[in-house]
């Protein structure tokens, strides 16, 4: 019987008692429940990673302006500026993440991971992680499987959709998937991987979904950027044995509870938060007036 990804605790016990790596039960799950072959799964992950890297490339090289006018080539601007606030690596991390997300807003091809609104986060994290640490493609694909396992549990216990759980469920989940993947790829142990997930969730709890004019542009694009920063800070803490104190499974339950109690005006309806500001109203009028 394949592991069903109901909890991080069960995933950990399963791996430790069978002495297998974290990604293995994810493979077994997909084979058992969805009837795919192992070769198909690796191929699918490889294709996804390729599309992610293509999105970064497209975002950094082509014109990224959206029909609403709110997306204005920010990824390229961040990439090209000579004003470096922290380090070259950090600048590239933010630029590539935004680039991939802008491709999504401008009707280009992306991987919804876990959703289209969060589609810049895993590309930004994994492509930069691979470059900086010279990791093999195989390692990154294993990281993607670990990320998928994390997503399955969050979806099962909370939500990965902005209309159900707010933005914590979209960019928060993607960041949590990414931080776990980082620690896994860098050789962290299972406790450290799951601690990274817990810390990321703690950082993104409560984030509302309030897209201006209902479009997946503002604040989605900058939130993809902040999500990768949170993923890396969480991974840095966890891999140094920093303790989130609240276990990851309990963090996920907290996320679900917050999502359930969040008012519907903060769940993709574009009725609250940033979407309700005077400027947003004006933009919304302009965008949707054309009908």
């Amino acid at each position, binding site marked *: 019987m394949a592991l069903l990804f109901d909890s991080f605790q069960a995933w950990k016990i399963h791996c430790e008692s069978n002495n297998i790596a974290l990604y293995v039960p994810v493979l077994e799950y997909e084979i058992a429940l969805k009837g795919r072959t192992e070769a198909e799964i690796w191929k699918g992950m490889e294709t996804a990673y390729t599309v992610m890297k293509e999105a970064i490339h497209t975002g950094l090289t082509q014109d990224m302006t959206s029909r609403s006018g709110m997306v204005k080539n920010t990824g390229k601007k961040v990439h090209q500026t000579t004003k470096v606030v922290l380090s070259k690596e950090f600048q590239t991390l933010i630029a590539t993440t935004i680039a991939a997300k802008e491709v999504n807003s401008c*009707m280009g091809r992306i991987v919804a991971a876990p959703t289209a609104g969060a589609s810049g986060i895993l590309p930004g994290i994994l492509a930069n992680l691979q470059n900086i640490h010279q990791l093999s493609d195989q390692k990154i694909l294993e990281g993607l499987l670990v990320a998928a396992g994390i997503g399955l549990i969050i979806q099962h216990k909370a939500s990965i959709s902005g209309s159900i759980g707010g933005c914590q469920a979209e960019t928060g989940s993607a960041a949590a998937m990414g931080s776990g993947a980082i620690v896994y790829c860098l050789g962290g142990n299972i406790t450290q991987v799951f601690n990274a997930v817990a810390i990321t969730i703690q950082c993104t709890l409560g984030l509302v979904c309030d897209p201006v004019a209902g479009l*997946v542009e503002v604040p989605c694009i900058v939130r993809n950027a902040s999500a990768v920063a949170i993923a890396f800070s969480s991974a840095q803490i966890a891999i140094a044995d920093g303790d989130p104190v609240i276990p990851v499974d309990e963090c996920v339950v907290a996320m679900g509870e917050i999502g359930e109690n969040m008012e519907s005006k903060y769940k993709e309806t574009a009725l609250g938060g940033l979407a309700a500001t005077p400027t947003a109203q004006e933009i919304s009028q302009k965008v949707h007036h054309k009908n």
Partner: protein
Amino acid sequence: MSERSSIFDMIGPIMIGPSSSHTAGVVRIGRFAHKLLGKVPDKAVITFYNSFASTYQGHGSDLAIIGGLLGMKPDDIRIKTAPVIAKKAKLIFEYKTVNNAGDKHPNTIKLQLTSDQKTLEIVAESLGGGVIKIVEIDGFECSLSAQTFTLIIKAEDIKGSIAFIAEVIAHDDCNIATMGVSRKSKKGEGCHFIEMDSAINPITLMYLQNLRWISSVIYLSDMDL
């Protein structure tokens, strides 16, 4: 949550942005219609309802539906320029909007298509995550996910027809996932909608087609393959 997700719902789908309900789902609705017709229609009247009526342009659903009608998949990068390609393919289209249709899902689309003098009308909902539900075909109510292997059979409403069709399919070793029949009036033609887990034998299809009380059989193999 009853049905467990695939890991390719976590890392995927691969799609054209910006939103799974406004682009990926909408492309699939158009593509379903394309598959049903077996070709690009000559003319399409596309009606966006409710929430879709006010958001379809901002999210590019207008381009997505044309892409689907041209037979494109949700990850086709040509979707952005679909109207230009439609012109070359001699597809004439127009958009309509209807707000406050209380009986309809927030993200509903109606397609009225003409192809070789024949017409086809489809009503469908985009449920999020690229998942769609076809709720009406030519006035017959249905509930199709357009994800599995689908049979649409128009037949005289004779006694035992449902059981008969189910048995024929079962003999083919095909597992029926969902099956429904819709009638517009008490007597007259009925339309059977059958979703199956695997492909059906061409010979079984021919057999069904040749039955006197069956007027048409349409078979759609796995939509996204």
